């Protein structure tokens, strides 16, 4: 199969993720969209690894997964804490920075 | 150990000592601070006697590697000019500590912090005059701002926070311009014989610079020093800072820190960029003359006694700047001597003004009245300090002011003539506060002021003694200053103008 098709899928996934981050308010959904973008990046890395015949891309993909896992742990914890204190998971409600 | 390095280490040791004294032992802390500053003053005087006045090269030199990869050294050494200023700084420090015995109380932080800041500042003061590595100089130049910032902001009065910030921002602005110039020099040095920050080697570089480069680098230095000095129109931080700071801090600020500006003009502007200095001399002289007259007029119009003293200093710094750029041996020696004398006469004015203010609880001149009858010793001290400020012959400032005027006249008569009008204005700006505060009937609120106590008398006596002694016999200082000045003039390629119609012709 043409390996470039994977890249198209990856681009599609990334776009869906990015649009999701920008337009959705729910923190959990935004979070999932971020994961989607990360995975799109992973797919790209693996694809290029395949195209170039080297393992570098796959190694980086592993790193990304580890980072993503850590991020999930921390991020979910924060979201849960915010939800507990504010009874809301909307990220627009947590706009404290502007003040 | 090197005399300069040990003088710089002593205050740091003293501040460590103070740091371990418990906070509640206020008297101990003060005694430790006084003891340390006295010790440094003694070592300064000893260095003075060891100095060989006839030798124009740097003395007490120490060079150790600091950051070798950038060619940065810990390099110190003094010539006559730097030695005079260091001597002035270390002599003023114990006087400031003793005179402002109670200034440290009632600040935002503890007494301990005050004296640690003062001592750290003293290290910086010595370092900034002693440094012969331009990077080291820059570090001291900027680091000096930190203790002063906290001294004004933490222990001052009135709008102390605003004044401290204004002071800091002004100085940082100048400092950053200077940093840009220093980096420029470093890069140029790299192209011609290797990276270095050594002033001696850098002063050879001007041969390789285009006029534009030299002018730009010169301006970077000069603006920094003009802010420090302060030269009109970069002066507005000074009255605010001086009015907000404690009197002791003001003495160090005006007496010592501002001298870094005029010192830097000689040591760096002239030495590093002789051609640019010549290019800018007319403009600088104009600014200096404006400073003289402008500062005097503002002093006449001042209502607050501390601001008044600050404005007189602007006028005096105009004289110093004029003397430096007149490029005659009289002007140059006069300017250097002026730096020393201004330190003492301003110290006397500020300290006495500080005592007056702390007794009266106000710094507005018109709140005082008839002090001569209530507090004769205090009034006399203020009067003598004022006479020194208006350069009365027989007091130290006269010698320096007259040398500056004579020296300037031989080369730039117009500047000297306008500046001479400053001596009439000086009479006004001193005699107006003298009349309002010391003379006249004793006004309500002043009847019960107490005269100077023994500690205050001991603090002011040496200052007045120096003012009077140097007025009659300035030779000890001039003997050290003259060779250094002559060296600068000669290395700039100037010779004194020959009398236009001397008898020998």
């Amino acid at each position, binding site marked *: 199969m043409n390996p470039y098709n994977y890249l198209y899928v990856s681009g599609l996934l990334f776009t869906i993720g990015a649009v999701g981050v920008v337009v959705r308010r729910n923190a959990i959904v935004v979070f999932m969209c971020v994961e989607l973008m990360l995975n799109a990046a992973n797919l790209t890395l693996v694809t290029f690894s395949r195209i170039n015949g080297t393992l570098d891309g796959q190694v980086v993909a592993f790193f990304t997964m580890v980072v993503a896992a850590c991020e999930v742990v921390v991020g979910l914890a924060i979201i849960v804490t915010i939800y507990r204190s504010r009874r809301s998971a909307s990220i627009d409600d947590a706009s404290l920075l502007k003040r | 150990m090197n005399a300069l390095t040990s003088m710089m280490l002593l205050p740091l040791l003293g501040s460590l000592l103070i740091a371990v004294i418990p906070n509640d032992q206020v008297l101990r802390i003060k005694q430790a601070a006084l003891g340390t500053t006295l010790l440094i003053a003694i070592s300064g005087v000893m260095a003075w006697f060891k100095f060989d006045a006839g030798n124009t090269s740097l003395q007490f030199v120490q060079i150790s590697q600091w950051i070798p990869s950038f060619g940065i050294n810990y390099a110190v050494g003094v010539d006559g000019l730097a030695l005079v200023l260091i001597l002035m700084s270390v002599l003023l420090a114990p006087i400031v500590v003793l005179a402002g015995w109670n200034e440290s109380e009632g600040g935002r932080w503890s007494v301990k912090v005050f004296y640690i800041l003062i001592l750290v500042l003293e290290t910086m003061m010595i370092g900034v005059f002693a440094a012969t590595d331009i990077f080291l100089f820059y570090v001291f130049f900027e680091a000096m701002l930190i203790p002063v910032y906290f001294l004004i902001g933490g222990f001052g009065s009135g709008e102390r926070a605003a004044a401290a910030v204004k002071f800091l921002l002004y100085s940082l602005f100048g400092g950053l311009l200077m940093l840009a110039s220093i980096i420029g020099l470093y890069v140029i040095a790299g192209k011609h014989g290797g990276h270095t920050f050594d002033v001696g080697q850098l002063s050879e570089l001007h041969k390789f610079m285009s006029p534009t480069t030299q002018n730009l680098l010169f301006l970077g230095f000069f603006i920094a020093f003009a802010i420090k000095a302060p030269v009109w129109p970069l002066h507005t931080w000074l009255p605010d800072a001086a009015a907000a700071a404690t009197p002791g801090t003001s003495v160090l600020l005006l007496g010592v820190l501002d001298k870094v500006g005029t010192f830097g003009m000689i040591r760096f502007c002239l030495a590093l960029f002789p051609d640019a200095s010549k290019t800018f001399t007319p403009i600088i002289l104009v600014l200096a003359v404006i400073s003289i007259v402008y500062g005097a007029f503002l002093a006449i119009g001042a209502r607050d006694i501390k601001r008044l003293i600050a404005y007189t200093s602007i006028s005096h710094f105009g004289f110093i700047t004029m003397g430096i750029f007149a490029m005659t041996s009289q002007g140059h020696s006069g300017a250097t001597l002026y730096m020393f004398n201004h330190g003492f006469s301003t110290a006397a004015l500020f300290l006495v003004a500080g005592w007056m203010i702390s007794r009266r609880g106000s710094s507005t001149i018109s709140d005082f009245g008839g002090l001569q009858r209530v507090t004769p010793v205090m009034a006399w001290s203020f009067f003598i300090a004022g006479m020194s400020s208006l350069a*009365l012959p027989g007091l130290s400032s006269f010698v320096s002011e007259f040398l500056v005027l004579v020296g300037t006249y031989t080369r730039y008569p117009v500047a000297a003539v306008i500046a001479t009008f400053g*001596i*009439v204005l000086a009479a006004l700006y001193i005699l107006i506060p003298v009349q309002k505060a010391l003379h006249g009937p004793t006004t309500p609120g002043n009847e019960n002021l107490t005269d100077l106590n023994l500690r205050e008398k001991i603090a002011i006596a040496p200052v007045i003694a120096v003012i009077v002694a140097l007025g009659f016999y300035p030779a000890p200082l001039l003997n050290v200053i003259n060779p250094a000045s002559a060296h600068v003039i000669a290395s700039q390629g100037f010779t004194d103008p020959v009398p236009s119609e*001397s*008898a020998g*012709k």
Partner: protein
Amino acid sequence: MTTSTSLVYLIALPLLGATVLLLAGRRSDKWGHLLATALSASSFGVGLYQLSQMLARPTEERAVTQKLFSWINVGTFNVDAGLLLDQLSICFVLLITGVGTLIHIYSISYMSHDENRRRFFAYLNLFIAAMLLLVLGDSYLNLYVGWEGVGLASYLLIGFWNQKPAYATASKKAFVMNRVGDMGLSFAIMIAFATLGTVSFSGVEEASHTASKAALTAIGIMLLVAATGKSAQFPLQAWLGDAMAGPTPVSALIHAATMVTAGVYLIVRSNFIFDAAPTAQLLVVIVGAITLTFGALVGTAKDDIKKALAASTMSQIGYMILGAGLGPAGYAFAIMHLLTHGFFKAGMFLGAGSVMHGMNDQVDMRRYGALRKFMPITFATFGLGYLAIIGVPPFAGFYSKDAIIETAFNAGGVKGILLGSTALLGAAITAFYMTRVMVLTFTSKQRWEDNQHPHESPLLMWAPMAILAVGSVTTGFLFTRGDALVHWLSPVVGEHAEGENLLLQPIVVSGLALLAVAIGVAIAIMKYQLSEVDAIAPHDVSVFTRIARKDLLQDSFNEAVFMRPGQALTSLLVKGDQNVVDGAVRGIGRTALGAGSVLRKTQTGFARSYAALILIGAIVLIAGIWVVTQ
């Protein structure tokens, strides 16, 4: 030149007195005045010793010098702390210490009720020391130290009772106006150094032979400015009247006998400059002529006895300056008039002090009258001084003033006639206003309230007056006998060849002068002795009187031309500094704040908008890279 090791004691003794009294403070209240008087007297003793030494030497070796130490030494600017005592300065030394000591003695009694008498004596000693330095310095810069030193002492003494605001203002005014003159001296020294390369008298004299006229004229004019400041000459005369705020002995010593004559000393000392710079010399005589008339006119309208005498001092110094401006012919006469004036004017001031002492410090002459009976000694001594100043032979003023008038007439051409007539007119006015003072105070009808009890002053006060009165009678005769003073001074100021074609013979001038004096005296006697005088100054007087009472509008002029514009400029600059210079600085701060508050709006706090911005940014960046690499 002969050197000496004892000149310094002349200055050191009174300086020691001032230092001791000021440092010891109240502890020396009991004996301070005695110490000061003793030191002043011993300085006089040293002066007499120096005179005897000087007389023992041949004429050309009479001047002695003493180098104390090297004072300022930078490059070619070398000034030693050196003293020079020659025939000219010894006159001044003896006048200063002699009259000074008498005034010390007088003050012991005059100031005995003042709690700050010690301080007064400290200032007096300080003045003596500074004045001696002025006349003994061997260079213009050393003279300058004394010059400003006497200014300081004068400031302190005028403001001795500075608890009265008007007195404090008077002292400040004197100092500031003197500083304007001092500026002239500064300029003179600067020009001398820049053009001649030296500031010592001997050096400048040597250089003056070869120097250009332009340089010497510039120096001369600046020296004249200095002289006008210190000697209260036109246009810097306005401070002298106010200076009468000081205690009367001060007016006698400083503002009559010694300090105000320093300008004359300066011009005579710089004779080599003025002789070579005719323009400067012409200005000197013009200033002298204007001032002698100015002072005399002001004197006619003053009711305050001290101010009348002050105006008279101004006028008499005008005579001296006029004499000094006449060149070698006039120098000696200027000095002679200075010395005789030192005696009679000091004596009259002390007399005025004695009158005030007896009249509860009343100074308004319209409140005096008929004091002759109550104060016979004061009347006698004052009267002798009066006869001397108006120039009645054989009193001192006759010899000295006559000589100046005569020299003025013989200055040649229109200039001589103008100057001579002015001097003659001045003599007539002098006779008028001095007679007025005399009559109003001593011989007219009593105009004081009955609760006043005028009485003669004690011995310590009248003895000095008596001695000065003797001086007023004899000095003129002594100085002119065989042209003693002229010959004595000629090594310093140069010989003057007697002119062949005199415009007026001396006897004619004397006759004219006496006629002028007689007219002045006659008018005054008619107006004040033979008719009633109001005890309160009348208001319905002529415009001229009104202007004269206001010192010919000198203060109004200074206020309108210098003071008010200066104040306006000051407040303009103060506002400008706050709003323009500092305003620019604060403007930068405000701009930074404003820019921040605008940019702050982009920080909404919505995480999604940040994310969108990051996205857009990334896309722009990638697009940019793509475009560039294509």
